[in-house]
């Protein structure tokens, strides 16, 4: 990170910006494990958290990292970890625990090309469906995807806030390009992000019920060591936290953790639109692919094609609202993704056949080029 202190304009990397956003949002506990291309987040936290009274722990693997941020969150900390593909795979079991036990925490996944070790220093967007469904069983997840370095700050802060508000794990889906890219950003003044805190029970609340009782509510969360004694388990549990196999209680619990997020999908949707007012061809993209798609929109407009871009920052829960609104004016939707077809399936579901949806995939470890997307659109229009 280098820059001019007085003006607070800094040239920094996406991974560093993510760390800055985390600290601005009050993250005071970080547990992590080295993995390219996310290690800079851990290194920043290792240097910075001790200076502000926070805690950094390097764990023995990603299973332990995820477990540690769950433990810290239960003790009242705002906790976070950062990783990439292989580590994210190892975190899945504990991610499910955090979903079921309603424990706020933030997981940064700087996506690299997979599967397995894959391409450790090259980008991909192949973990979109893993983020949604990587852990077993029905659950919901919140995931945000920044496309600029400044957004790495903003959306990380947003992840912290949402995890607290909904008492749930939230994933920041970076990719190698955004994580390692450098841009100049104006560092936000302290306190410029409104970060929510988890709902707390009052100390004298009798009959405290720590868990979701259905109806998509977010119950107050006591802290270990505080006045309320409560039971946390990965077994399906009732409102008190005790294991249950009563069908009605089980049904209520699972629907509760899903509904508290899925029913808010439209409220949580954050989009950025370019020339969508009159567009006939809509590019739908996120993360680094959206940067290239934006350039393609410019080229296509110069060639007389009415193209527009809908860039989603909220990946999960998926909101089809804006797509449905735009559908009647569109001739086609093109979805460029650095995978072989992941979020495109949600786009197809949203427009339900009203508009043809075409996917442009790339899995060779490289970014799209504007001409590649432009040519694809032109070919689609000709056919």
């Amino acid at each position, binding site marked *: 990170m280098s820059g001019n202190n007085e003006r607070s304009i800094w040239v920094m990397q996406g991974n560093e910006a993510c760390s800055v956003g985390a600290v601005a949002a009050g993250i005071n506990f970080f547990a992590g494990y080295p993995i390219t291309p996310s290690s800079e987040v*851990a290194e920043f936290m*290792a240097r910075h958290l001790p200076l502000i009274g926070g805690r950094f722990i390097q764990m023995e693997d990603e299973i332990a990292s995820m477990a540690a941020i769950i433990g810290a969150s239960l003790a009242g900390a705002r906790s976070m970890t950062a990783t990439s593909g292989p580590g994210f795979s190892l975190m899945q079991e504990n991610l499910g625990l955090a979903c079921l036990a309603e424990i706020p925490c933030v997981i940064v996944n700087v996506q690299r090309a997979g599967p397995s070790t894959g391409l450790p220093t090259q980008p991909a967007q192949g973990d979109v469906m893993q983020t949604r469904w990587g852990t077993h069983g029905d659950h919901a997840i919140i995931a945000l995807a920044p496309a600029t370095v400044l957004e790495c700050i903003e959306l990380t802060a947003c992840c912290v806030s949402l995890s607290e508000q909904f008492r749930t794990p939230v994933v920041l889906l970076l990719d190698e390009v955004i994580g390692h890219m450098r841009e100049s950003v104006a560092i936000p003044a302290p306190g410029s992000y409104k970060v929510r805190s988890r709902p707390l029970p009052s100390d004298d609340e009798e009959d405290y019920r720590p868990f979701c009782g259905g109806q998509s509510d977010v119950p107050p969360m006591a802290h270990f060591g505080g006045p309320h004694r409560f039971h946390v388990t990965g077994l399906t549990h009732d409102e008190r936290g005790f294991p249950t196999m009563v069908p009605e209680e089980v049904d209520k619990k699972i629907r509760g953790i899903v509904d508290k997020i899925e029913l808010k999908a439209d409220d949580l949707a954050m989009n950025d639109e370019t020339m969508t007012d009159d567009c006939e061809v809509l590019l739908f993209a996120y993360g680094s692919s959206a940067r290239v798609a934006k350039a393609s929109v410019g080229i296509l407009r110069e060639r007389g094609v009415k193209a527009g871009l809908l860039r989603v920052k909220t990946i999960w829960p998926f909101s089809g609202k804006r797509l449905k609104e735009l559908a009647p004016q569109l001739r086609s939707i093109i979805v460029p993704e650095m995978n072989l077809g992941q979020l495109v399936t949600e786009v197809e579901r949203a427009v339900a056949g009203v508009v043809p949806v075409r996917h442009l995939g790339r899995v060779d470890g490289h970014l799209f080029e504007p001409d590649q997307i432009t040519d694809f659109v032109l070919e689609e229009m000709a056919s």
Partner: protein
Amino acid sequence: MPAPKQLAERKELLAGGHRACAGCLPMTAMRQMLLTAGKDTVVGCATGCVEVVTTIYPYTAWRTPFIHNAFENSAATISGAEAAYVSLRKQGKIDKKINFVAMGGDGGTYDIGLQALSGAMERGHNMLYICYDNQAYMNTGIQRSGGTPKGTATSTTPAGKVIPGKTQFPKPLTEIMIAHDIPFVAQATPGYPKDFSDKVEKALAIDGPAFINVLTPCTRGWRFPPEQSMEYARLAVKTCFWPLYEVEYGVIKINRKPKEKLPVSKWFEGQGRFRHLFKEANKGIIDEIQAEVDRKWELLLKREELTQA
């Protein structure tokens, strides 16, 4: 046991042209291991420097079968290969002796791979596990591991106002492996090549699991000039920070007892990762490490005496 000169006449099984840094002792350890083990060797390697630098597309430096798996389970993967070999042998479908070698760096062994290693040793697979210990996660940018010495500055234990480098002593991995009661456990370093290759030979000849912890200085992570790698490997032994010893069926034998035990500060000097320890405020840390090295060395001498009796 072949003399180094005889080993040098054998065909190199690790091809040149790989991407290791100049002065990389993990790669010296690989060459020495392969010269001893020979071509009928199956190698499994966890994610780490050795895997990365020897297998960059479209090349491989390995003139043996080689499998890179995930970070945490090279011992488990080789367990599977060895179990299949045992079965094929029983069925009479294969008759030659094949060596099974699993490897990992200190991160892949002390930390994320410990569970797989422990399981493989307990099940008793006829395999050799080699930990090439360069005392941090070098491949990802020098983060601390369970094998990083106390006082080391790494990118996740930066020496500064709050902490003087890593605050914990390293995990006693060799002793943990001794506690598994397997037929052969040893500590070595490529700084003493004959000692290391003798240990590899013994480990492969023995029936059952074997483990060798090999200290392999890293010029980039330890911050010293590349031509001094061998010297730093030997200084670790001369200061008794890294005693060379082997444990065969529970009997400890120290392979090298320095006539004059050097102070650990002699090993620290010139290594950038320990530079801050020589500041006045941190002097106590060197004394503390010295006391721990002395304690463990004395204990090792006593254990040798006890187990040989």
